[in-house]
């Protein structure tokens, strides 16, 4: 399974902080995003944002980054700390 985390506005809009996704058929971050977006219209809208960022195992990653069974993947909006 892939552990998927959501933060900030993405978490709030989806109404979920964490989900588990079966790793079968998923090899990269884009495929994971597409699998989650297929859930329903709301998820499709939130996860289609061109500002969405992704981290794999707590490292900021690209949309073709490899994802394997057991990974922790997080989706979130641009960061605004400091």
């Amino acid at each position, binding site marked *: 399974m892939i552990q998927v985390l959501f933060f900030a506005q993405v978490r709030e809009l989806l109404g979920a902080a964490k989900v588990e996704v079966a790793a079968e058929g998923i090899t990269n971050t884009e495929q994971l995003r597409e699998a989650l977006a297929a859930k329903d219209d709301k998820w499709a809208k939130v996860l289609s944002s061109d500002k969405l960022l992704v981290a794999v195992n707590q490292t900021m990653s690209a949309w073709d980054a490899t994802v394997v069974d057991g990974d922790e993947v997080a989706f979130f909006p641009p960061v*605004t*700390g*400091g």
Partner: protein
Amino acid sequence: MTVTANSNPRQVVRVQTADFSVADEYAAIANDNSDGAVVTFAGKVRDFNDGSAVTDLTLEHYPGMTEAVLVQLAEQAYERWPLNYVTIIHRVGRMELGEQIVFIGVTSMHRKAAFAACEFLIDFLKTKAPFWKLEAGEEGNNWVEARDSDEQAASMWNDDAK
């Protein structure tokens, strides 16, 4: 929540809900007489953003990743400048107007390195570290939008000479 990246006792990274004392943090890094420069930065909760009144702020973060990113930033600063102490403290949770959010403290033999490293750290912290601000105001809650100017400030360091 204290993370020490390596065996460097002069590098401190903390993510915490509690407030911090600038005087205490200054004292902790200003004890080495080989350092001629101590530069500190404190970021506070201000009462406006994009023209709207703000009443309080809540900072969300990604536990684990946040600390790791801050440690990486501190290590990059050590690689770029001859630094002695580096302290990064970032608060999370709810904060009132005027409260302190973030502290950066840097020491070096010379002021230019200390000023540059402090500015480098805050620029990258604003664009690379997974913190998100939720502002509360009279019209409800509002997630702070990322600013292009912050991204530009961080990207400028890529072209700079050390």
